[in-house]
């Protein structure tokens, strides 16, 4: 959502504005002097540059002012705005491009203060080992560690997976609870049907996608993100779920949130950023997708005291909102970010009904710090998809967050240092680490430390294959580069680390560019036009101390830029880590021939699939993605994207930095349509507009028709009546007795000022300035191209005051239209236009008896035709209510439109109902109105016109002034195209069978036999009704050269029949107009 700065009201959401096309295209001073070509150039030709473009906007939902903006069409950035009538500024400043991490070197230096060579927090063997199934830990959760993890051991939850009942704890995810119960396989793969298991511990999960069955069915949720609750029933999926067939009973909503600083991610960098911004006076929002703050520190179990202290300090700080269980999923223009907060999902059946289940936060942030961390990357080795193959850091997270050991005997396969910490942590918790297999020839200090803990480290080696079906049983290993295994390790767990991908999704969505970081071997944020910084793992900063310092600095810079004095947060002391050995950039690992090497587990895409894509000539990852579907599953390739780029680079023999990544698009994680819809569904999905008489209509059995957003009475069926019978009865009452309808929905605009008459003369095709005070004139408005845009009546209230009515659906558009011309073309005219649509309620009183009814209620009004002629108006009291009565007819009958305050409309309506009772007064709806007007050949703009119809086409040359020097549309009536004799004219159609009904839209052809296609079409039916007055069906149609065809027979294909029809004048009833005056 762009933020457009209205020159008056300041920055507002784009949705408040209307676009008005290219600016500085003035209306020609003398259109009549232009050639057809020059006029066509004004009408139809506009620039379409790439880059800065001056255009008109209107703050339609605000101050209704038109203004100009220069927008860069390639970035959507609004470069400057200026008021209508002002010159386009010669220069303006484009927003500067910011580097994601302005002071990185300082922060890295500052962070690098720890003492090297200290031992890790927990040494190996410091804790009781876990024995086999049914050993240590809860007897029914055999893979639960007795002490580790943050789960509530006193809160036991029962859940069902694939029909089996299990137990877990509060604080578990479905995945961790399954792993604690020894369940690792959660389903099969989508194309190949291979067993697949839990692969990760977070949103990046490609495999363990489950179907929630109860309490409410939901498909395709990663088990790693489903918080466990009592009574949860879920099932594994073969790669595909199914939508619920019953309506979702939960509530969903959205809120708008504003802040000075949004911090995305509450890991070490995010917490530090929020802490630096807290208590500074700045409004801060900290959003994290987990129930607890801490991010990767919870996974590693480090510095939990600092996490707890900081969490408590943030909770107590004013002006800071911590949004837990909240995923920021989209980053749009002008720092507009969307987040989804899962508010009651984790409560299962206990979720309160009146609290929304999920909430979308529409966040407008002055500054953003992205601390979204990094996802571990997998490697493409043979049979790398067996249940038991897991990301190394995720296994560590299961241990430290949930107290779960996903296996007993593990092999670790890595290309970098990070997996060593995981291996040592797991070993300390009792997992047997058979070997660390490292592709690097030398693994430095970490390898020494692992060996010191009694773990075999095979440097320069790689995994060449795996064994097992429902679960991994063995891993084969060979020197890196060889494809045949030389050693085999029995293992039920294989920890994999192919390096780290910064979570740059949001940064990239913000329009940020990524660059390839050679050291990290991945893509990191580079520059962005928006006010965003990236800190910590998301920036490729994997070192904890550096990440903390970077976060604190980013938070401080952000609030400082907003004018607040930043705080210096207390950061934990991070003991120095072993000296780093650079990671090795490995994507494809040689392995047993024929064994698949999966790149995208969720889409079953292998290295061979990608090879087929490059073999077919694909040279871009965007193309290989679409060819193979790699990265298109609901995990959106979080673990596989960069791996796929690496594989394709290898296949093409190019450097991965030249290949880049595929485009990151919102949403970062799947968001359900129900959530996005929020409360804009059901009855609230679109506003319903009602008149002051709505309740009466409803109480009297009216069926309603939607006209724009209005609910208008359609017809009022009596007992046993269908629509046809009701409408024939209502029509007969209007033609023979008296009937009344609610016409309040017509748009009404008050036009005031010394130049009001001049203005209306320019706007309407006919002359308005000659209208006398007290009188009314029908008028037509055209666009400059000469096509009918709206019609209605103009009432002259005073010398310099008019009341203009518009069609119901066009009221806002006509007012906008008036303002656009006044503000941008004719600012010198002293005229003001104001909507008064709801200031008046209007009742149309129609029929030969209408004069008698009105006369009985308006004793002061001289109702005789001579005193109160057609197209005159009078102010009087009707039933004691102040009213303006207009003699207007949209039916050809004697008729009045009575305007009163809507506050008194019901009293008027009921008085008319009572006074008209002796004459059988009948309420009628829009259907009858349509029949009555169509019998008279009165067109309805938008039904009988479609933007390609001139007043002349409608047979309304009489409404087009020849005297006025100019009005909008006049020049176009002299174009060759509008003068063609074969233009479509509005005509009447009489089916030869008086009972035959032509559906609206029916085409018209010349002959009684259809020729071979293409069949030349002569026109189409625009309105079609049964007429009580004519005793037959009839239609209005737009027909080529229609007025020259009156009397001619045409054919209308209806179903498989060709219905013969006769072309007639559009005025089929009372062509002499004898009934108008009663």
């Amino acid at each position, binding site marked *: 959502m762009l933020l457009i700065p209205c020159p008056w009201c300041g920055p507002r959401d784009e949705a408040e504005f209307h676009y008005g096309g290219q600016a500085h295209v003035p209306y020609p001073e003398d259109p009549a002097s232009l050639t057809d070509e020059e006029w066509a150039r004004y009408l139809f030709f506009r620039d379409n540059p790439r880059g800065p473009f001056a255009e008109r906007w209107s703050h339609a939902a605000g101050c209704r002012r038109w203004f100009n903006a220069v927008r860069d069409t390639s970035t959507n950035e609004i470069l400057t705005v200026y008021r209508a009538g002002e010159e386009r500024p010669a220069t303006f400043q484009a927003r500067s491009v910011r580097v994601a991490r302005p002071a990185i070197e300082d922060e890295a230096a500052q962070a690098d203060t720890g003492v090297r060579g200290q031992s890790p927090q927990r040494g190996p063997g410091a804790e009781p080992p876990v024995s086999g199934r049914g050993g240590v830990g809860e007897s029914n959760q055999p893979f639960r560690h007795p002490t580790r993890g943050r789960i509530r051991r006193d809160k036991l939850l029962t859940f069902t997976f694939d029909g089996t009942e299990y137990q877990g704890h509060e604080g578990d995810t479905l995945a961790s609870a399954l792993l604690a119960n020894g369940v690792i396989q959660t389903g099969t793969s989508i194309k190949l049907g291979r067993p697949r298991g839990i692969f990760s511990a977070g949103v990046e999960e490609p495999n363990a996608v489950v179907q929630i069955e109860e309490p409410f069915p939901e498909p395709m949720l990663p088990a790693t993100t489903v918080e466990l609750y009592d009574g949860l029933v879920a099932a594994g999926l073969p790669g595909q779920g199914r939508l619920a067939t019953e309506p979702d009973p939960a509530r969903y909503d959205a809120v708008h949130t504003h802040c000075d600083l949004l911090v995305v991610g509450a890991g070490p960098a995010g917490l530090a950023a929020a802490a630096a911004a807290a208590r500074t006076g700045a409004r801060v929002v900290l959003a994290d997708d987990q129930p607890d703050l801490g991010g990767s520190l919870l996974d590693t179990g480090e510095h939990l005291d600092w996490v707890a202290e900081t969490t408590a300090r943030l909770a107590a700080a004013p002006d800071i909102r911590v949004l837990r269980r909240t995923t920021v999923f989209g980053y749009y223009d002008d720092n507009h970010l969307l987040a989804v907060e899962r508010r009651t999902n984790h409560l299962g059946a206990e979720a309160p009904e009146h609290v929304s289940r999920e909430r979308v936060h529409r966040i407008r942030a002055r500054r953003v710090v992205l601390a979204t961390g990094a996802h571990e990357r997998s490697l493409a080795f043979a049979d790398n998809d067996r249940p038991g193959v897991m990301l190394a850091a995720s296994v560590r997270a299961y241990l430290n967050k949930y107290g779960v050991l996903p296996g007993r005997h593990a092999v670790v396969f890595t290309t970098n240092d990070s997996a060593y910490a995981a291996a040592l942590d797991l070993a300390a918790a009792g997992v047997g680490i058979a070997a660390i297999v490292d592709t690097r020839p030398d693994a430095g200090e970490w390898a020494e430390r692992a060996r010191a803990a009694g773990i075999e480290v095979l440097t320069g080696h790689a995994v060449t294959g795996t064994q097992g079906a429902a679960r991994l049983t063995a891993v084969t290993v060979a020197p890196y580069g060889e494809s045949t295994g030389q050693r085999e390790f029995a293992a039920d767990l294989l920890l994999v680390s192919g390096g780290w991908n910064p979570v740059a999704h949001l940064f990239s969505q913000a329009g940020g560019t990524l660059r390839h970081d050679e050291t990290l071997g991945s893509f990191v944020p580079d520059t962005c036009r928006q006010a965003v910084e990236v800190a910590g793992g998301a920036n490729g900063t994997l070192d904890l101390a550096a990440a903390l310092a970077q976060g604190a600095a980013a938070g401080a810079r952000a609030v400082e830029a907003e004018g607040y004095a930043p705080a210096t947060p207390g950061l934990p002391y991070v003991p120095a880590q072993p000296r780093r050995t650079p990671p090795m950039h490995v994507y494809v690992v040689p392995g047993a021939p024929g064994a698949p090497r999966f790149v995208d587990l969720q889409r079953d895409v292998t290295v061979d699939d990608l090879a087929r894509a490059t073999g077919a000539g694909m040279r871009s990852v965007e193309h290989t993605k679409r060819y193979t579907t790699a990265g298109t599953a609901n995990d959106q390739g979080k673990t596989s994207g960069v791996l796929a780029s690496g594989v394709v680079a290898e296949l093409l023999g190019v450097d991965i930095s030249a290949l880049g990544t595929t485009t990151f698009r919102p949403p970062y994680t799947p968001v359900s349509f129900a959530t996005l819809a929020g409360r804009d569904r059901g009855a609230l999905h679109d506003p319903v507009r009602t008149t002051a008489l709505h309740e009466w209509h409803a109480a009297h059995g009216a069926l309603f028709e939607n006209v724009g957003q209005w609910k208008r009475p359609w017809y009022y069926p009596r007992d046993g009546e269908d629509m046809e019978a009701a409408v024939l009865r209502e029509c007969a009452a209007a033609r023979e007795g008296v009937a009344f309808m609610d016409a309040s929905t017509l748009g009404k605009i008050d036009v005031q000022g010394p130049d009001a008459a001049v203005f209306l003369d320019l706007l309407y095709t006919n002359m308005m300035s000659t209208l006398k005070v007290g009188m009314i004139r029908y008028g037509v408005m055209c666009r400059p191209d000469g096509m009918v845009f709206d019609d209605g009546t103009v009432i002259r209230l005073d010398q310099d005051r008019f009341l203009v009515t518009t069609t119901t659906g066009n009221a806002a558009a006509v007012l906008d239209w008036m303002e656009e011309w006044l503000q941008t073309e004719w600012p010198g005219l002293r005229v003001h236009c104001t909507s008064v649509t709801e*200031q008046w309620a209007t009742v149309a009183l129609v029929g030969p008896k209408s004069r008698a009814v009105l006369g009985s209620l308006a004793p002061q009004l001289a109702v005789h035709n001579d005193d109160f002629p057609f197209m005159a108006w009078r102010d009087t009291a009707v039933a004691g209510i102040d009213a303006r009565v207009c003699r207007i007819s949209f039916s050809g009958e004697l008729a009045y439109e009575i305007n009163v305050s809507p506050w008194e409309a019901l009293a008027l309506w009921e008085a008319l109902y009572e006074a008209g009772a002796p004459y059988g007064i009948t309420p009628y709806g829009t259907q009858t109105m349509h029949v009555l007007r169509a019998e008279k050949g009165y067109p309805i703009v938008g039904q009988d016109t479609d933007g390609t119809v001139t007043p002349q086409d409608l047979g309304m040359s009489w409404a087009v002034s020849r005297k006025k020097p100019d009005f909008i549309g006049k020049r176009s009536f002299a174009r060759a195209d509008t003068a063609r004799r074969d233009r479509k004219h509005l005509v009447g159609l009489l089916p030869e069978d008086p009972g035959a009904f032509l559906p609206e839209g029916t085409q018209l052809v010349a002959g009684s036999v259809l020729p071979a296609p293409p069949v030349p079409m002569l026109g189409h039916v625009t309105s079609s009704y049964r007429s009580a007055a004519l005793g037959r069906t009839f239609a209005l149609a737009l027909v080529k050269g229609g007025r020259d065809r009156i009397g001619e027979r045409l054919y209308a294909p209806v179903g498989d029949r060709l219905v013969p029809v006769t072309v007639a004048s559009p005025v089929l009833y009372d062509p002499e107009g004898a009934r108008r005056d009663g």
Partner: protein
Amino acid sequence: MADTALTAPLRSPLSDAAGRLATATRTSRGAIRLAELPFLTQMNVRLDPKGAAADAVGLALGLQLPVDPCTIARAGELAALWLGPDEWLVVGPPGGQRDLESRIRKAAGDEHVSVIDVSAQRTTLLVAGPRARDLLAHGCSLDLHPRVLGPGRCAQTTLGRTQVVLVARDDPRAGFWVLVRSSFAGYLTDWLLDAAVEWTG
């Protein structure tokens, strides 16, 4: 028109919703207060802010017509809301239409001034209580923080899917006036009551 003697009581756009609004106020236990303030006098005034009429009209109303966008000037029971650089909405207690219109017209003299009674064009919803801002934030994209939309400020914007004029009342605890087109008032009421469910149960 509302000044004339009446036989039937006036019906406001939300007269049928009064009970539901009161129930929501009661069940929210003080979190929110919702009510219609019907029949307020509302006069749309258009004039050149630099012309002689601006001062004359201001003098007649006892206030300075505000020229800063989105601000309000008050004098006794009258409030002049900025709607545009040459447009104001003068709001007063019910029943004052004729008097107000003639006062403004008289003050303007022969200047080009438009004065239009729009009292029935919009009705007014009171949205108050400690949760008023949270409630409005469900459907209003503006920053409603007291620092931004505090006393003395108003804004034309959208709430839910309809246009409104938001008026911050002088005492922040007094909440907001939400002026809404009468035909949309029923929709907006349904919307507000739905958004308030979190506090009303």
